[in-house]
């Protein structure tokens, strides 16, 4: 580097003369700034307004009645039985859906591990549910499970396997049915991510284990599962975040019913926000949802870093 570059004052007029490290830094900042700026303007700014709104009793249809409410909107989510049940339903839905998606997805990924023509075609076809508009997924199952004319619901009811009113109208089974629908829709994506994780496993370690006489199950437990953790956690985060915000399928399949048996936080928030334009309350529900998701995700991130360190430390 030339001696001129050592004079900070001249850097500005002659950027080429900057030390490489500075130019490198500048370049990387320029590459990263647009997305951060974009997200701040388009994402964080509206979100901040939402936080502001959530402190008011504010209905867009009746703006003249707006008044400061402090944390009332948040307190009401906890005390109002409808919101509280929505919170519980959402939690059950998320845990159930994510658990079954990971379990079934892992089985699928293991079955698809070998790279042959059949598996490649199977993977492509299995991905179809992921590509279908979620609203349509909800409607498909509403139609299939209808107790009177549904291809599945009719026979289930006829054989006495379900409530004659159908799975989606049975208050004890509706939430489980929605979990089932979510599993149908998203397991393929989980399988895809886990499959990618399997394919990323270093072949030499597996071979070495075979040479050492490890059985299939031992290989799975000692090598595959620990090395798969980053993939598992990616799937876990993606699915938890999305399952917690479930809206489309529930909206069309049950509308939150019977009673409030399948009411979820997002359904509740959308109704408050986009139906009644009660933006104070809607923002509060949405913000609370965001906080919960972020906390869960933060927990997962800790796990990722821990797993990362373990994987890299080897």
């Amino acid at each position, binding site marked *: 580097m030339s001696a001129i570059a050592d004079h900070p004052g001249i850097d500005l007029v002659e950027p080429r003369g900057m030390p490489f490290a500075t130019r490198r830094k500048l370049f990387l900042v320029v590459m990263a700034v647009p997305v951060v700026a974009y997200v701040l303007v388009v994402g964080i700014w509206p979100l901040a307004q939402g936080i502001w709104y959530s402190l008011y009793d504010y209905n867009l249809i*009746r703006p003249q009645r707006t008044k400061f409410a402090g944390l009332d909107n948040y307190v009401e989510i906890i005390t109002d039985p409808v919101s509280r049940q929505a919170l519980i339903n959402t939690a059950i839905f998320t845990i159930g859906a994510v658990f079954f998606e990971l379990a079934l997805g892992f089985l699928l990924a293991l079955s698809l591990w070998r790279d042959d023509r059949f598996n490649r075609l199977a993977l492509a076809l299995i991905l179809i549910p992921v590509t279908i508009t979620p609203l349509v997924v909800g409607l498909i199952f509403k139609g299939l499970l209808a107790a*009177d*004319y549904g291809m599945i619901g009719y026979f289930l009811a006829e054989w006495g396997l379900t409530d*004659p*009113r*159908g799975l989606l109208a049975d208050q004890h089974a509706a939430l489980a049915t929605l979990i089932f629908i979510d599993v149908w829709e998203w397991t393929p994506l989980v399988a895809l991510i886990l499959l990618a994780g399997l394919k990323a496993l270093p072949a030499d370690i597996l071979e070495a284990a075979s040479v050492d006489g490890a059985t299939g199950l031992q290989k799975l437990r000692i090598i595959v599962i620990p090395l798969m953790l980053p993939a598992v956690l990616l799937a876990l985060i993606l699915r938890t975040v999305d399952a917690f915000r479930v809206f489309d399928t529930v909206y069309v399949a049950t*509308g939150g019913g019977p009673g409030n048996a399948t009411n979820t936080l997002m359904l509740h928030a959308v109704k408050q926000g986009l139906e*009644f*334009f009660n933006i104070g309350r809607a923002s509060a529900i949405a913000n609370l949802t965001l906080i919960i998701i972020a906390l869960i995700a933060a927990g997962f991130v800790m796990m990722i870093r821990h797993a990362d360190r373990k994987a890299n430390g080897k």
Partner: protein
Amino acid sequence: MHDIKGNHMKNADAAKLATAGLLACLMGSTALGQDKPFSGITLTIAAQNDQFAPVIAELAPKFEEETGATVKVDILDYGSLLTKTTADYIGDTEGYDLVTMDIVWAGEYAENGYSVELSELIERDAEEIDVDDIYPNLMMGLGNFEGKQVAFPFAGYANVLAYNKTRLDAAGLEAPTTMEEFVAAAEKLTDPDAGLYGFVANGQKGPASAQDWMQYNSEMGGAIMGEDGMPTLNSDANVESLKVYRDLFRKAAPPGAAGYDWGGREESFRQGVAALMQTWSVGAPGYYNPEISKVVDDVAITTAPHSGDMAPSYGIGGWGMAINADVSPEEQEAAWAFIKWLTSPEIHKEFNLMGAGSFLRKSEMTDADLLAKFPFLPVLAETFENGDYDYRPRIPEYPQIQDFLGTAVNSVLVGDADPKEALDAAQAQAEDLF
């Protein structure tokens, strides 16, 4: 906190609308392009996906030919329609020029001044419109709230009783005229082993279950609002009617009705599964259509029943057409011309012959062409003449009240909730709104 609703006082402009609208209806002959009064104007209608929507879209080119204004119809489901049009009004974004307004939104429209106030225009063009030919109940119900004409009626729906005459005859029954007879007949006509049920109503959570129950509730002497303008959701009459309704629903409705909204309910009747159904008249033309109906030769339609000890309470519903108050005076003028054109006797008759199922005028009830196609018109005439359009309160708070009721009724019908407890909870929520 800023008020996002701009201070638009465009309602006054409406009164100044030029008489060009009048021309629109008189112009039968095709004039040169530049002579057409609304050349270059595009009207966008937000329309509920009911039977009338595609018909409006099909008639639109004819309006364009006569007046030069292009009409585009955005067909939306109920939820999207409410959300998008409300956002359009409160954000002053002028997305839609004309909006189909559900009868129950009238209060909200009036309170917030979303739409052009039409009273003066109607008075001015009374002769051209032939106001006397329009049922007063429809003019009031589908557009007038506390003296403000927020929309112009174009699709009157009557709550009627559709029944499967063949099955009633076989059971030796007459069409029920009282709720007591209705309940008895429905139970008698139910034979689950044969897959036959006495009646069908909406069980799905939300507007579907709320609206159907409100209908039966008013026929059994219940009411949503008290004399003092406060909600009375948990009145004794309402609790009693919900009990009767729940028992009827469990005994005589197809099990799947727990998940039905209007579509499922109509289908159940058209497939011959349910023998009795109270419903909006807009679906009635479908029962006579062999492509979708299995009861073409069995169906009959009559006025809705009511409790024996009270005067008839026939439900009226339907849609008015509202002009967005935010759009320019020129567009408002073209929109008003379109409303007059669509509801004119000639076009409205064609509209119905094309399957809109949306009646409005007294003259339509005796029109030979219409009667030949829709033999049930006298029932509509009777309902429109004597009906009640306020059994679902058209107040600004209606959407929320409906939501509370939708959950309460559904949890009683489908869940195991106690009617009294469910309505108490709904009442407590509703009181918070006032």
